[in-house]
């Protein structure tokens, strides 16, 4: 049959009204919206969530407290102890009461933020840098480099972070926040490296990497400019959460007595010192514990928000 306008259409042949079904031009670009990169997209979706704002405010608050504790209290956390005040309840000027030694709990909580946050931040930074570098190189170049790195990573991975830290801290002569951070990083880097390696392996086989190679871009430049930026997303999420878990790890070490020395003010130490009188005076334990928990919680919430925002499946739905 040929395309014959005079040919009669059969009774079954239905054609829709042209007004109701206008046919648009094929594949036109929508110029009305502002250009949006995937970072913009992520930021937009994060902005909408209340969890983001709550955790952001909390994090900033804790950071400020850690940097400038003097802004929040004029009471000294280490001096002015008077035994009659031991385990005393809250009074004017001392809203959280007194520790066993008669020191002001509130001041100690405020000043304790610094040590905890320093350890957490340092450990996260070290672990992320080491993990990203090692993971990218191993995943991208493969071969014997990957084999060796994976084996080494497996060995460190076989020792749970805090267990390894316990052993190492037991033999180290000096204990500073930096030491604790380094020790924790030593056992925690394989996790980040593994994630980065997996992510790089995925990005490595993308067509845009092949296209850049066909242009003559050097292998290393491709790694730096194309692979890493696309592969780093899961690491960002894990790093945010790690900050929180490192703070908990430090507190656990201090609680066990092999974290920061008892002279250094940290939430973990304070909790440890308050446990002996838990029965009679729970508050000197509860306040630093609450501060610790709230800090960690804010990082965890932020980690959740960031992960949802960067989720590739959510992006692909656009």
């Amino acid at each position, binding site marked *: 049959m040929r395309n014959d306008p005079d040919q009669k259409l059969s009774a079954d042949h239905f054609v829709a009204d042209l007004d109701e079904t206008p046919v648009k031009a094929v594949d036109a670009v929508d110029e009305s919206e502002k250009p949006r990169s995937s970072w913009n997209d992520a930021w937009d979706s994060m902005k909408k969530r209340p969890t983001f704002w709550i955790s952001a405010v909390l994090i900033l608050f804790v950071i400020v407290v850690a940097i400038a504790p003097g802004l929040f209290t004029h009471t000294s956390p280490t001096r002015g102890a008077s035994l009659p005040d031991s385990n005393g309840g809250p009074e004017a000027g001392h809203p959280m009461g007194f520790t066993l030694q008669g020191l002001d709990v509130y001041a100690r909580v405020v000043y304790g933020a610094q040590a905890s946050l320093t350890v957490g931040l340092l450990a996260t930074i070290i672990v992320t840098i080491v993990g990203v570098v090692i993971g990218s190189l191993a995943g991208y170049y493969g071969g014997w480099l990957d084999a060796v790195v994976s084996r080494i990573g497996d060995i460190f991975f076989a020792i749970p972070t805090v267990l390894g830290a316990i052993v190492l801290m037991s033999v180290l002569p000096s204990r500073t926040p930096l030491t604790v951070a380094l020790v924790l990083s030593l056992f925690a880097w394989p996790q980040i490296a593994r994630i980065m390696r997996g992510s790089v392996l995925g990005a490595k086989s993308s067509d845009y990497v092949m296209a850049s190679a066909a242009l003559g871009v050097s292998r290393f430049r491709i790694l730096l400019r194309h692979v890493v930026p696309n592969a780093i997303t899961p690491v960002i999420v894990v790093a945010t959460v790690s900050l929180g878990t490192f703070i908990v790890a430090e507190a656990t070490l201090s609680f066990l007595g092999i974290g920061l020395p008892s002279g250094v003010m940290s939430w973990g130490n304070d909790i440890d010192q308050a446990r002996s009188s838990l029965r009679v005076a729970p508050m000197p334990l509860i306040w630093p514990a609450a501060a610790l928990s709230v800090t960690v919680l804010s990082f*965890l919430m932020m980690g959740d928000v960031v992960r949802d925002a960067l989720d590739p499946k959510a992006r692909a739905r656009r």
Partner: protein
Amino acid sequence: MLWYTGRRLLQLIPVFFGATFLIYFMVFALPGDPVAALFGDKQPSPAVIEQIRAQYNLDKPFIVQYLLYIGGLFTGDLGTTFAGRPVIDELTRAFPITFRLAMLALLFEAVAGIVVGLVAGLRKGKIFDTSALVVSLLLISVPTFVIGFLLQYVFGIQLGLFRTTVSSQAPWSELVLPAIVLASVSFAYIVRLTRASVSENLSADFVRTASAKGLTRRRVISVHILRNSLVPVVTYLGVDIGSLMVGAIVTEGIFNIQGVGGTVYRAIQLSEGPTVVSFVAVMVIIFMLANLLVDLLYAVLDPRIRYAK
């Protein structure tokens, strides 16, 4: 399957030697006198120092030390504790207690975690889901020892429902509260993991096909969604055993349980370095073996792994 098991065992060997070597290295090869380092602030008597030197063969070259130590591990000679008892005896006595504690904790976290996670994933966005998320976040944020203290205080001291410390025989009933404490953080992670997995599988193609076959909703959920969601949870359990060990040290310390963790806890408090090192080395080995078991379980659950490469 046998092939896969064999491969995993082979892979374990270099890791075993590497990890034990690493621990040994950290303790004995760093600059400084290892004995002094091991005891920290304490000053042991010269007799004890001599004993330690002999026990760890500190007069011999490092590699020989290490090999002798590994040899000792295989023959069951792990040295002696500060109190003069052989470590292996301590271990044999303490291990069953910690094992009971760990099994209880695993039971709690797996069963409760998967059930809660499943319901939360199926009702995403609704009240149950949101509260499950909040509770799990809180449990992860609060350190285990704080949870331990809190529960000990509330249930033990205030309400008097549970004993605050556990007797030396540590029967199952007394281990319930400590097991809950130990399981709490892992429970939270499992809830989140299961929830994410279930929610992802809900919209999976094969689930749609299963429904299209005419299967009841209940069957689709249990046979297809839940079964497939278990796989990442099992993977997580492998890593979790490590945190359970750390948790055990803390929990047994708080509840005064005479298990492996409690021994390590006391040894740390008393600055008994050698005991700490021995016990940790054994814990690491157990961790590796447990991971191997988990890998095998993973292969059982996911046939693609069994036949890979």
